[in-house]
């Protein structure tokens, strides 16, 4: 019987080693962040990671302060920046590494200390490079970035009188994503804007691991409503019902 359920987050990241490239889902908030998978990677103390995503996160404190008027940020929010703060990340391929305004993100702090490399790329090219990896395409020509630093060192070419830059597929070793419901086949549905990069990254790595709110029986998800077919997902883990400290195994 096909069954992609894994009993713990530690088990889910068992083969994630030093130097791995991680596509980490999410956008800017806590609800779409695969926090428990990030925490499991932190517990594993692997080093030299490359992280790929929108923002590495602006840190827990930022989220709690800045967002306080808008949301109550849960205690179990562990954005990718958590791994940066712990010195586990060698490089970021990101669209939003720097904080808005004059405050500094954990990424900026690490960058200032020379501890981390940056490949800055816009969200659109980043998302398409990831989708392209899933789709078995080597690269694509986009009009976005021509004539800017983003195109430096990349092929620029004219089609029908417009210039395009060649962007290459960006495949990960692991995609760590967050979803709402899953079945044992790994089929996934997402709530609202938590879909974002999570659905884009599913299938774009050798191993895709989904952190979900709930697992339902096969057949409960309506075929037309499934956003990520289970073929793109290797492992599914359920979030704990109560917030758990990051350093507790599980």
């Amino acid at each position, binding site marked *: 019987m096909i069954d992609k359920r894994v009993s713990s987050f530690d088990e889910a990241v068992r083969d994630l080693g030093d130097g791995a490239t991680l596509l980490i889902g999410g956008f*800017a908030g806590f609800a779409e962040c695969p926090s428990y998978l990030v925490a499991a990677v932190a517990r594993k103390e692997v080093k030299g990671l490359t992280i790929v995503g929108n923002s590495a996160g602006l840190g827990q404190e930022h989220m709690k302060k800045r967002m306080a008027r808008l949301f109550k940020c849960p205690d179990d929010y562990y954005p990718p920046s958590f791994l940066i703060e712990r010195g586990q990340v060698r490089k970021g391929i990101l669209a939003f590494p*720097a904080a808005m*305004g004059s405050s500094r993100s954990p990424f900026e702090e690490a960058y200032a200390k020379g501890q981390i490399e940056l490949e800055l790329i816009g969200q659109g*090219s980043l998302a398409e490079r*990831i989708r392209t990896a899933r789709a078995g395409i080597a690269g694509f020509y986009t*009009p976005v970035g021509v004539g800017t630093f983003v195109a430096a060192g990349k092929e620029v070419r004219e089609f029908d009188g417009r210039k395009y830059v060649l962007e290459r597929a960006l495949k990960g070793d692991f995609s760590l994503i967050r979803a709402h419901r899953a079945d044992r086949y790994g089929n996934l549905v997402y709530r*609202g804007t938590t879909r974002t990069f999570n659905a884009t990254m599913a299938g774009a790595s050798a191993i895709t691991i989904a952190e979900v709110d709930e697992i339902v029986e096969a057949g409960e998800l309506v075929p037309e409503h499934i956003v990520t077919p289970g073929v793109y997902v290797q492992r599914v883990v359920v979030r704990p019902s109560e917030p758990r400290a990051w350093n507790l195994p599980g």
Partner: protein
Amino acid sequence: MPGPRLDHYAIALRITREFKEGMLVNLGAGIPTLCSNLIPSDLDILLHSENGMVGYGPVIQDPERADPTLINAGGQPAEYRPGLAIIDHAESFAMVRGGFIDISVLGAYQVSARGDLANTVMPGKQIGSLGGAQDLAFRAKRLIVAMSHTDKGDRPKLVKECSTPITAPACVKLIVTDIAVIEIAPDGPILREHAPGWTVREIQDLTEPQLIVADDFREIDLA
């Protein structure tokens, strides 16, 4: 003495006057997202958010009603609106790159006389963020910048040449600042409107390139 500077809401309100029935509009984080709360209720437009919403509503002000699974590009809770569609990030930018956005409203650190946009690396910072701005700046049919007219040191932000890295060249079509509304035209920036109490001279003094004064130069209408 010039008049007071417009606040963020006034800038956002002026920008909403550019929105026409049926348009698809993307609002960046910061001043632009304020627009979502200022759109007239009888104007049927669709708001696009980078993270995959098409047709969302205003920012929810009451934390009790905020749903963290429905957030706008600024990470703020967005009101559900009938007709809302959710897409993933790749499709969201397929839509941007495909040229479906009628108006993109972005912030900026600097804009050049020819409409180059610099909103990636904040002056004084080592590194910056592109977010979705580069895709939007390259591909929106019309790009409107919302910004303060000068930086914290009172230096002009509308400049001859940008001194920080360019997000996209020659893309800005309209700039709404806290003292003026300026159109970027082929011949140069055209000063179209002024904040109450501001003269051409006072605006020009805080602007690097020479401004062309519009024939119908007038006070910003915020009524």
